[in-house]
């Protein structure tokens, strides 16, 4: 069961780590452009093979205009310049993949909000924008403040229902990972709740936590490392998250 998945994951992690070390160590690794992309490949069990939103992918291929709203907390809003946040990078990435100039990703991140508070903004702020897709990042503050799981699940369900009723596609996104945060916050219950709600509501969940955990454990990124270079780390992570989100909409050709 999970045991073998884990064995596989650890083995892949070790191989990736070794490859990474080789790459860093060798003087030939001078190609500046794909370095980030190569580094932050998703863990094998989270590789997107087909689009979770085929209609949206068609729309993009036909170069029709597209509005995506990213609603969430501080990690959606982004640390540092706005152009560096994951929604901004997602806009760049999708535009690059489709050679389009009419894709907009609107950032509605507000720090410290729980799912219940975001629910209110979904109807007030998100619906009027008439987006084709909403990326709803949540769960962090609910876990931090210890919101009851029942209330959390209800808010998620209400939010998904609201967006579905308006004919909008939804991608849920869970928390960020770092060893430090994992040690002090019990995210597991909240993540299971998100998985459950996504399952019942037939909604795609972007498993950011699992992905970042994989990057952390395979040594691709050290989220708990020394303070120097933090700004660059933040920029790289947002770039990586944006690319992996783009994969969910339009998976790279195998």
């Amino acid at each position, binding site marked *: *069961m*999970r*045991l073998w*998945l*884990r*064995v596989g994951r*650890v083995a892949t992690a070790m191989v990736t780590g070794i490859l990474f070390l080789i790459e860093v160590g060798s003087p030939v690794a001078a190609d500046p452009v794909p370095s980030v992309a190569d580094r932050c490949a998703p863990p094998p069990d989270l590789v997107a093979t087909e689009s979770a939103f085929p209609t949206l992918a068609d729309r993009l291929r036909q170069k029709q205009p597209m509005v995506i709203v990213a609603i969430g*907390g*501080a*990690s959606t809003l982004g*640390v*540092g310049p706005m152009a560096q946040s994951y929604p901004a990078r997602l806009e760049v990435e999708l535009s690059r993949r489709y050679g389009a100039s009419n894709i907009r990703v609107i950032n509605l991140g507000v*720090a*410290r909000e729980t799912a219940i508070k975001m629910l209110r903004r979904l109807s007030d702020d998100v619906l009027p924008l008439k987006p084709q897709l909403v990326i709803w990042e949540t769960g*962090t*503050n609910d876990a*931090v*403040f*210890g*919101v*009851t*799981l*029942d209330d959390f*699940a*209800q808010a998620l369900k209400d939010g998904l229902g609201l967006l579905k009723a308006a004919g909008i596609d939804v991608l849920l996104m869970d*928390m*960020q990972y*770092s*060893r*430090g*945060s*994992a*040690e*002090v*916050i*019990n*995210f*597991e*219950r909240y993540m299971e709740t998100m*998985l*459950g709600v996504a*399952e*019942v509501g037939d909604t795609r969940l972007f498993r950011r936590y699992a992905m970042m955990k994989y990057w952390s*454990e395979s040594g691709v990124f050290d*989220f*708990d490392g020394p*303070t120097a270079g*933090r700004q660059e*780390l*933040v920029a790289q*992570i947002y770039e990586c998250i944006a690319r992996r989100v783009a994969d969910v909409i339009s998976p790279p050709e195998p």
Partner: protein
Amino acid sequence: MPQTVVISRDARVDFFRGLALVFIFIDHIPDDVLGDFTLHTVGFCDAAEVFIFLSGYSAGLYYGRAFHRSDFIHGEALLLRRIWTLYTAHIFVFMIYTAAVSYTIEVFHNPMYSEELEVGDFLTSTHVVIVKALLLQFQPAYLDILPLYIVLLALQLVLMPLALRYPLALLVPSAVVYLVVQIWGWPNLSAYPEDRTWYFNPFAWQFLFCLGVALGLGRLIERRLFPHDRRLFMVAVAVVLISAVIKLSWTLHWHFDDIPALLIGWLEPISKTNLAPLRLINFMALALVVEWMVLPQAQFLATRPARAMIACGQLSLNIFCLGILLSVTGHFVLVEFGSGLVMQAVVNGCGISAMVATAYFIHWFRRVERRSPATKAGAKRAVDEE
């Protein structure tokens, strides 16, 4: 004084309580592989139900006997002393937990995790948090079962003396309150920070505890609350098996997308906070089946591993607190040093060994104390009260 039966400890109670403590230790470590092999994998209920129910049952037996044998005031005093012990244990665990979080927050500071760092809020508003912890309102993960246990036992100060002769009478008001919570999702006690409520709603969970108490009290006066009926047994077996199949499909579904999660759209949400009926029914059926199939004199209870679990179960409070601290430590170790199979085995192995070793040590120490006449009475009391 009504006639009561002299009852020696039921090894099954201690065995399953010990097992529940081990499960609680495992379940409290996020990402623990062994977590896929505990009760919640094959049941809607989990070790929390086992722990609370058996605690109620033991309380019914021990304090019920005290109320029967001696006077009312003495029974109340015994209960109060136990509540006080639980309270101090809670505060002790809280202190250690706070120290662990303070340390981690101190070391870990990254702007990317500004929201995650809010959990450290309680370090900057210590004056509020300490008061809230003393009032049992501050309940971070791990620190939510003991407050429940304290409140449930405090409830027995009133209920138990009234229910000595008619244990079933205890269940009437209890069931009414439980039903109110199921229908209206209300009431629940408030927690800290504001707008929060208790993770284990005492208004719902009191029913399970009272069921345990009533069964314990019933045993004292040799009255069975559930008839030894073959049909009832068959129904219980069916409930346990069907629940197991459904829940197992959910568990497998998380690991393999291809296996469907049976009926999940129909059955979710199953509230743990409010002890959803499905959890309660599943647990009671399981308890009935186990009670029927495992005899008190069952052979396996004499084996070494079973004796280790019994030793833990007899010292439930000590081992529970130790288990919580070991979970926190185990989780820390897995996060810091990798969660590969070897580390998993080390953490789980060391944790369970530490729990068993501590239980044996305390038992040994109590035996030594009992031999000295000066402390004889105290040691006897300590063993029975658990």
